[in-house]
């Protein structure tokens, strides 16, 4: 009886799944876009802004009358910031829901795993949430990138450090795929520019106390810190530097300082911190077409200015739209061809990928000055000159 119970319950489960995920019936005039993005879990914050941008774009396209005469139906699933869940959901989207166009997931780690799935089914997409080069170094043909590479996140900061005569620097960062790539890039740039790296160390995720690490940096005599970090760790580092009265000429974070909460919640402590951004909502500086309209409608709908995560997702969808129009159909092979060859300007910047599928996107380095993020590098986009070296804590 008991073993039969098992078979019975399993059969029931299978049947239930069949019924429930049988796939939505689609009217002929709609086209299904689908993807799995983290709406809960550790990536929910940045990924959530990409979800915002995606929804905005879909509504706008539908208002314009759709794409190739078809209304877009959107199917966004939540991968719980978990790799295993994500690949399962992409299999579902491709084989069960039979989406016509695939959207990318968020984070380098999850994209690395998902890239195998869409590759197998020849479903192309433009990644907007992954900047780690190894993803594009495996000969994959169906994944394209719109964002700049992780290795260049500290490029601007390294150049600024060189300008103010920094000779010795420390590189620290969280021990996970993306921060480690940007740390590797920071080391390469420093080497190229003749800056000696006196300390390089990774710390575990969720690390909050950096006292000892900062003392080690002090002991090593570093004049600049390149911190490949997210929000909580970067905030803790700069706060603890102030607490311990540790002065350096330059402190550059990567993702953290770009979030509005960084300057808002840290107040004066956040001043002079450098950060990297793939994109900033500055239409007069970046001058990409359509930026003003995008920023206005995003702000109207969500009550905040879009950050670069939102901008990247929106830009990637503009690329997809242009490629579909160029291909003249939703056929996945034709779409792939178009994505590989198209040259298009979006609100995010120019999109034109190399043979590996990577876009040569250039981001900006900004500095927090009087609570605002001001672009200071590259020079062609600089709003103001960087105020470096950072003044000592006691003199602020």
């Amino acid at each position: 009886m008991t073993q039969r119970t098992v078979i019975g319950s399993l059969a029931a489960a299978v049947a239930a799944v069949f019924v429930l995920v049988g796939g939505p019936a689609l009217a002929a005039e709609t086209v299904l876009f689908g993807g799995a993005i983290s709406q809960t879990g550790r990536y929910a914050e940045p990924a959530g802004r990409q979800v915002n941008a995606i929804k905005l774009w879909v509504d706008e396209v539908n208002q314009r009358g759709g794409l190739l005469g078809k209304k877009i139906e959107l199917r966004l699933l939540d991968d719980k910031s978990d790799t295993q869940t994500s690949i399962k959901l992409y299999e579902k989207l491709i084989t069960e829901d039979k989406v016509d166009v695939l959207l990318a997931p968020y984070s380098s780690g999850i994209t690395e795993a998902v890239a195998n799935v869409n590759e197998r089914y020849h479903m192309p997409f433009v990644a907007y949430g992954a900047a780690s080069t190894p993803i594009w170094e495996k000969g994959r043909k169906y994944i394209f990138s719109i964002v700049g590479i992780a290795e260049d996140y500290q490029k601007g900061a390294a150049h600024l450090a060189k300008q103010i005569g920094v000779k010795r620097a420390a590189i620290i960062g969280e021990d996970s795929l993306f921060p480690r790539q940007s740390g590797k890039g920071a080391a390469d740039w420093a080497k190229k520019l003749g800056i000696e790296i006196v300390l390089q160390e990774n710390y575990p995720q969720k690390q909050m106390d950096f006292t000892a690490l900062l003392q080690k940096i002090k002991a090593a005599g570093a004049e600049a810190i390149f911190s490949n970090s997210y929000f909580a760790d970067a905030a803790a580092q700069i706060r603890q530097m102030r607490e311990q009265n540790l002065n350096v000429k330059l402190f550059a974070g990567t993702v953290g300082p770009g979030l509005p909460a960084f300057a808002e919640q840290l107040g004066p402590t956040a001043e002079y911190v450098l950060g990297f951004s793939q994109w900033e909502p500055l239409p007069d500086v970046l001058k990409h077409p359509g930026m003003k309209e995008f920023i206005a409608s995003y702000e109207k709908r969500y009550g905040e200015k879009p950050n670069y995560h939102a901008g990247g997702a929106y830009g990637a969808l503009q690329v997809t739209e242009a490629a579909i129009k160029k291909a003249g159909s939703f056929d996945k092979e034709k779409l792939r061809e178009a994505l590989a060859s198209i040259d298009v300007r979006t609100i995010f910047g120019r999109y034109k990928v190399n043979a590996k599928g990577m876009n040569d996107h250039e981001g900006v380095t900004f500095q927090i000055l009087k609570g605002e993020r001001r672009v200071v590098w590259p020079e062609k986009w600089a709003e103001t000159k960087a105020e470096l070296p950072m003044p000592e804590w006691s003199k602020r």
Partner: protein
Amino acid sequence: MSRREHLRNLALIVVFGLALAVVPGTVSVYLRSFLMFTMMYVVLALSWNIISGFTGYTSFGHVAFYGIGAYACAILVADHGWHWIPTLLVGAVVAALVALAIGYPVLRLKGPYFAIAMLGAAEGTRVIATVWDSLTHGGLGISFPNVENSFPTYYAMLILMVLTIAVAYVVGHSRFGVRLNAIREDEGAAEALGVNTTRYKLAAFGLSAIFPAAAGGIQAYKVLYIDPPSVFFVQITIAMALMSMLGGKGTVVGPIVGAVLLYTIQELTWVNFPTAHLIAYGLFIIIVARFMPRGLMGFAIDRGWARKGMVH
């Protein structure tokens, strides 16, 4: 139970396996993955049950063995070019050795102390996987070459599951199992009766580490990218315990029922209610643990729907 009944039950397990063997050709890739992961949780819950259900020693860090298996597979396949099947054996052996090494001292601890020590051991294993960069690539994770893996992983998991059920069944109905139960009921008395409890506990612990390691390896080959936080995830341990408890821990059938039921419910709910689903999951854990400590099997036994002897 008579010999005939045992044979019949084992035959049922085999038939059950064969039935699942013809399924994959007829369903979509996604459904195949779903079934594969369901079977994985059956393996995990049953294995956890061998140590924690049968002996009452709550392993709150069983995910360590799953993670070790995943890493054994990833390292050997991606960095050393092995075929993936033998790596499952390597993972199982390594996990069993680690289990014996951890278990020898830690299984002396009783009750909550054992649970906390195992939690510490699992977290410690995760940290080692993160800092042992030359072997594991640390936080970078390990990426496999892309392969078509839907059928192979399905069948590997199916075989592993049938094997695990068979072993759990045999253990549950053997003198070995009786002694494990004696340890759970009263370890002191069992010792007084001449049972070498340390040896039995250790054997059960080692056995319970083998299958999760193999499952972790198959899982890694399915996902094709692993990093420490994703394979040493505390919630996997929780799922093992919860599934066993939901079905009825200390029985053979209970963890199977619990795993299938819970995994299916989760699959059906979360897609539509991301955050709310997780709150509901938390409340569900509370309700099961608080009000159904003997699980569905206990419920069934009380009502005479299942015979106690058959399921322990």
